[in-house]
């Protein structure tokens, strides 16, 4: 154990006095706090927008609930988007419900700043996947080859020290040195968050996920470290080692995560949401037309049954015969309407379900393809924990559906529309509302939104945590095996 300590100490000192340490410190100290600060500002802006939109909606809707009323729900921004922006800008932030039963989820954030969309955002997730992973490789590519080139590896192994101990010592030493600037910049970022006062970092909703994010990040950096050391044991010159690593890095970080979703789109195509919406509308229209036809036929039937002439649109003049026709008609049409509403609901749900299933399969193919790269696993993990990932998209849709159902039950279905039509094409409409419901005093419905919590994210993402561990074990043990047979001359 003593020797291990000596090796670790030597590695730490070596790494501390290299110029790459200075540059790594500079990069970490500037980028990580800047990323978190800017994302915090944007989060505050989005939160303010959300509150203002809610407020205006309340004001507009208060006391004006009538037949035209369409309840709206707003999604609050995710606090954890300060660490990982993810899909935050693309998730729907407004749900518009409709009496028909289909909600519309839209994103009204606008295309504010095309440049930032063009280049993407710098958040903690980006900094770690792109910059710190590169730094991890720079800190590890020459651990073995460099000593060999300097001739010191031979001397070191002349001492009675097992090779795996040397390897572990090197990993621990260099890893700790890289962690120093990283941890310091994380602490500075947390201080920035704390001083700004708009986010309570000690609240359970932030602290626990943040700790998980931190652990996952350390694990991911270690994967890149082990990869660097593996490449170093596989090669005999530092320059070959770094060139190989760069190619692997290019594939892991730049190519695979991007291309896997595209490949999934090709091998398993899914129609677009717009086409789906149109299909839903067409189904609904067809069935409604059919219902309308049947209702008219029924009305005529009732008229002839009761021996009336075509009374058409002349509603409300109120002869007893007419009233009789209407009462009978109301009674008979109810089961018909119910049946059709049921059918519409079924058809629409079927289309939606089919679409969701196909999209999920496509997403799964893309995700699994990209999981060849630890960078993708890390990305999925962090964005899900930050509630800005794919799970959140499903969560939004789930909330939207629930909100739609609630509003339909509490408000839309309380309006009773009686529509009478005759053969001559005229129609008359009467509006009434259910007992105990007063549209002027009804409460304006609001969407109560809950982001996916840590538990949900962990349940969905355990694969990726496991993969990160697995990558570490594979790279490390391969490194040990190969180093045991390394030609030190």
């Amino acid at each position: 154990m003593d020797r291990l300590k000596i090796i670790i100490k030597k590695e730490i000192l070596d790494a501390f006095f290299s110029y790459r340490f200075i540059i790594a410190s500079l990069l970490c100290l500037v980028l990580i706090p800047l990323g978190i600060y800017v994302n915090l500002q944007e989060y505050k802006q989005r939160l303010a927008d959300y509150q203002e939109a809610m407020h205006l909606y309340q004001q507009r809707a208060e006391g004006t609930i009538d037949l035209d009323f369409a309840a709206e729900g707003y999604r609050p921004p995710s606090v954890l988007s300060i660490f990982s922006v993810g899909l935050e800008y693309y998730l729907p932030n407004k749900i518009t419900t409709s009496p028909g039963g289909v909600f519309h989820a839209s994103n009204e954030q606008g295309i504010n700043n095309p440049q930032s969309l063009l280049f993407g955002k710098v958040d903690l997730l980006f900094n770690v996947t792109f910059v710190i992973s590169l730094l991890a490789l720079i800190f590890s590519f020459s651990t073995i080859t460099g000593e060999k080139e300097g001739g010191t590896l031979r001397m070191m192994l002349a001492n009675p020290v097992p090779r795996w101990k040397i390897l572990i010592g090197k990993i621990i030493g260099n890893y700790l040195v890289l962690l120093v600037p990283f941890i310091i910049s994380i602490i500075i970022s947390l201080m920035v968050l704390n001083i700004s006062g708009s986010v309570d970092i000690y609240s359970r909703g932030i602290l626990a996920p943040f700790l998980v994010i931190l652990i996952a990040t350390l694990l991911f950096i270690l994967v890149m470290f082990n990869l660097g050391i593996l490449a170093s044991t596989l090669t005999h010159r530092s320059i070959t080692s770094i060139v190989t690593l760069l190619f692997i890095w290019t594939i892991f970080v730049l190519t695979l995560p991007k291309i896997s979703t595209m490949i999934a789109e090709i091998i398993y195509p899914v129609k677009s949401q717009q086409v789906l919406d149109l299909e839903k509308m067409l189904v609904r229209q067809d069935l409604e037309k059919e219902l309308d036809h049947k209702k008219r036929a029924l009305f005529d039937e009732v008229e002839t049954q009761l021996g009336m002439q075509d009374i058409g649109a002349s509603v409300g003049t109120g002869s007893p015969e007419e009233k009789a026709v209407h009462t009978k008609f109301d009674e008979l049409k109810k089961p018909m309407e119910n049946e059709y509403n049921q059918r519409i609901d079924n058809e629409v749900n079927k289309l939606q379900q089919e679409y969701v299933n196909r999209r999920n399969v496509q997403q799964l193919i893309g995700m699994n393809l990209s999981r060849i790269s630890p960078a993708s696993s890390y990305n999925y993990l962090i964005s899900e924990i930050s509630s800005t990932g794919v799970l959140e998209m499903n969560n939004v849709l789930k909330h939207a559906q629930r909100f739609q159902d609630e509003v339909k039950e509490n408000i839309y279905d309380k309006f009773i529309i009686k529509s009478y039509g005759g053969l001559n094409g005229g129609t008359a409409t009467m509006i009434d509302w259910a007992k105990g419901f007063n549209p002027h005093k009804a409460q304006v419905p609001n969407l109560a939104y809950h982001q996916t919590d840590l538990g949900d994210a962990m349940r969905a993402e355990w694969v990726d945590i496991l993969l990160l561990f697995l990558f570490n074990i594979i790279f490390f043990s391969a490194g040990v095996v190969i180093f045991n047979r390394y030609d030190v001359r």
Partner: protein
Amino acid sequence: MLGTIIKKEILENILSFRFVLFLLICAILIPLAMYVNDVGYQKNLRDYDEQLRLANQDASTLQMGDLMGGRVHLKGFRHPSALSVIAQGLENILPRYYEFNQDGYKQGDASVAEQSTLSAQGKLDFSFIIQIIISLIVMLFASDVISGEKELGTLRVTLSNSLPRDILLLGKLIGGYLSVWIPFTIAFIVGALMLVIRSFPVFAPEIGMKFVLIFFLSSIFIFAYFVIGMMVSASSIRSRTALVAILLGWAFLQLIVPKASDMIASAIYPVRTETAISLQTSLLTNSLETEKAKEKGREYVAIMGGMEAMNNQQQDSPQQARWNEVEKQIDQKYADEKARRMAEITEGHAREKKVQESIALGLSLISPSAAFYHIITDMCGTGELAKSKYIDAVKQHQNSLESAVFSSVKRTMMTTPDGKTMMRFSAQPVDFKTLPNFSIPGITAGEIFKDNLANMLSIVFWMIVPFGIAYVRFLKYDVR
């Protein structure tokens, strides 16, 4: 002499193992990216045609009743950009359509919303491969042109010949550049051929021209990065040091500057968001409408002696004529007021945004990579220029719809002094068969040039200055 050096450089590079890796990456990724993006483009095109057809079908069933009920929502679709196969840019981020109604326009969904987390970070396309991947590899090639030879001791031997240092440097530059340019060219041609096979209109006059320009621009960009790599190599004694410096410099220029410039700009010059602005304008519209209704009600009662006159209107009574006059005045007054205050809000916002954008642009010019991306996305019709053209077209279309359709329904709302609200409609017939079409004017070469002058200068700067530094450093280089 120069020829010998160039030949030696090319041979040495071609036989190295990194050349094989580079060739593989180029030859696989570039055609693959073009293929995948072409598939995406064809899908977008089909969606576009389908949606346009359905929207037109929808519009053809419109009736006056819909217009009077305020149920007319017309859509204007953006035609997908063909050259998005080269640079995706904002292609999937821009809304696919805008919706127009009598209150104004509203943006539709963008296709990116349907995709997963990772594709939100941007897709793999030709521009990304050049900008991020190839730039890195090119700098790797350049990292040991000077310091590598020094480490091997061959630099000393070479310079013991009667060979001026500038010729040696030039030879190394040309030879090294050619050995990365050739694989890139091959991959580009393979990609273009594949597009031809997939019946993408590569030879259409405008697209063909742009393909050539894009190839030319990419070649220059690669050259700039080679020169930067050489500058670092000539400034360092060991190629390992050169490599680490290059990597960090690359991370700074490629990954950080383009993104951070915008973030810094928004931190030092914050601008209200679009959402806040649209809320503000809708609030203004509502409050003006209410005020107008109140004033009209007051005047109506004053002139006609009560709201009962609404029911038995006599077109030719003197009161009616006077009322028409007054109504026109009130309408005019509020229209002016609205136009003035709207302009105040939107123009102020546009000005602020312009300042912020120019700060971000200025900062991003530090990196040739950002400059390259701006130029290539503008050329491909998926950049900021395309976005501003889109928005302008939307505004114009709203105006033409306003005069052709929406203004033909006049809704008069009145609020009487005792708080009752009355609504009155009058409408002129509209022919829904001849609605104005939505189209976005194309981007001209002149506009691309004018908007990207600073970007082009930035790339030229990054070609000339590093070369000068490399030259000076190499003249004083200690070859021992």
